[in-house]
């Protein structure tokens, strides 16, 4: 049968505008390396058969397994036994029962302890950081659930702005044993070759590139918010603190200053002791943030001994319209495992 006229016309009209005409595709050597990885993967573990489901959804299930890994992202898998589907989000950190207390006095006390502690990077040494993190991915497909796969990020940053960042995949959090094995395949494939990037002097990707954080409270607050010209609210301070801890190992004076900035941040509450995802206990500090569309809770967990920020979490309490999540839902977290 001949091509229909409409198809022929559309092709002739639109083919010159194909974005792929100018796209750079992986070269032949890369293609062959990937082929060997794929073939090697078959020896790692057996794939369990896809669950028996209604015919109309079987293909979706297979395809969803295909989309399992975005390295360090959220692994989205169809779960045909359930519906309507909401993205699976990590369980929130448990807060102690009882009313929260004002945060400022506790933070000021922590700042004094931080100043007296000796932990932190040596001046002029390469900073070594490691964190586990996760943030919400919303599938474009209404019929998917998701399982959580955190990212592990480890970095080394030298004083000259050179460095190296390695990303791997953390332990997947899944709610279905039948899916675990298939997820594990992807996990093994991706942890086999963690993504790594090296940077020449001055090229390390960072929000704050060259200078160290100031140790005077007002100066530090301005420094933290300098990239947020429209910001300056309490939630912006929390976000900036998270950004800073993601990219710098702080010395005692810098930690103390950071805690005093937090002490001066209105709305922050002390929740009591919280056990974060790596199992460490710390003082929890929470900020509730309302805007016209949503309510969010920001949580920081701080080491009571030396004032290090151990973990951060953001939870959406309401206003999830357009996201396939059921509130309250954790939408991002970081666990700061190494900072030296």
């Amino acid at each position: 049968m001949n091509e229909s006229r409409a198809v022929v016309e559309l092709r002739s009209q639109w083919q010159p505008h194909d974005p792929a005409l100018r796209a750079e595709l992986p070269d032949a050597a890369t293609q062959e390396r990937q082929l060997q990885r794929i073939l090697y993967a078959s020896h790692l573990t057996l794939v369990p058969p896809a669950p028996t489901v209604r015919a109309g959804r079987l293909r979706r299930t297979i395809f969803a397994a295909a989309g399992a890994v975005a390295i360090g992202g959220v692994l989205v898998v169809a779960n045909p036994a359930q519906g309507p589907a909401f993205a699976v989000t990590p369980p929130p950190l448990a807060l102690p029962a009882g009313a929260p207390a004002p945060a400022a006095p506790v933070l000021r006390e922590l700042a004094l302890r931080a100043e007296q502690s000796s932990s932190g990077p040596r001046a002029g040494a390469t900073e070594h950081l490691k964190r586990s993190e996760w943030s919400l991915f919303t599938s474009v497909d209404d019929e998917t659930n998701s399982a959580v796969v955190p990212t592990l990020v480890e970095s080394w940053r030298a004083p000259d702005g050179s460095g190296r960042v390695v990303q791997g995949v953390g332990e997947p959090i899944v709610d279905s044993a039948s899916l675990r094995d298939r997820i594990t395949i992807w996990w093994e494939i991706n942890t086999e070759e963690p993504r790594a990037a090296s940077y020449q002097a001055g090229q390390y990707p960072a929000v704050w590139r060259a200078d160290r954080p100031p140790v005077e409270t007002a100066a530090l607050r301005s420094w933290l918010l300098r990239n947020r010209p429209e910001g300056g609210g309490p939630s912006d301070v929390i976000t900036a603190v998270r950004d800073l801890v993601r990219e710098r190992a702080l010395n005692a004076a810098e930690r103390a200053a950071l805690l005093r900035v937090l002490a001066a941040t209105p709305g922050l509450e002390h929740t009591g002791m919280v056990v974060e995802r790596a199992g460490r206990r710390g003082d929890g500090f929470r900020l509730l943030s309302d805007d016209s569309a949503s309510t969010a809770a920001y949580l920081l967990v701080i080491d009571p001994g030396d004032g290090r920020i151990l973990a951060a979490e953001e939870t959406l309490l309401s206003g999830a319209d357009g996201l396939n999540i059921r509130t309250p839902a954790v939408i991002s977290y970081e666990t700061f495992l190494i900072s030296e």
Partner: protein
Amino acid sequence: MEERFTALYRQHYPAVARYVARRAGDVDTGEVVAQVFLTAWRRFADVPQESPLPWLYAVAGRVLANEIRGIQRSRRLQQRVEIVAPTHDLPDHSGRIVEEVAMRAAFDGLSERDQEILRLIAWEGLTVAEAALVLGCGRTTVAMRVRRLRRKFQHLRAPETPDEERSDNDLVGRVR
């Protein structure tokens, strides 16, 4: 089986890579394509041997959807026609730019579904039946939308093109 998969991989890798490049310029194309073919390897018995591309494209669509992350970016795939830089040896330089802008505006004005049908038909070169397979919908639906697309872009075509309408039957079924 390994040999057949290797042949499939080498034959169709470029097409799958272009599929990915057309839809997302800011993802690691190689990584996405690797995920697509890993799935094909795992599910090799399900891959249609005669015409595997629609199956591979459908997998690629799901992999891409999962790859594009972040709350802002993931609500929908923001896909656009890139403006192709005008070639300097073209005789009508300015006309080319005007045409590109017009085409881009026309593409952006389409619904996401119509954009995807246009990509599959015009750029991936699929038949209506194959596009329907990728999209998981009926052939008639795709055929009707193709007709509408043709009519919609009539004004952008050269004036000598006749405006004929064919029956849906011309559009449905394997036409390649």
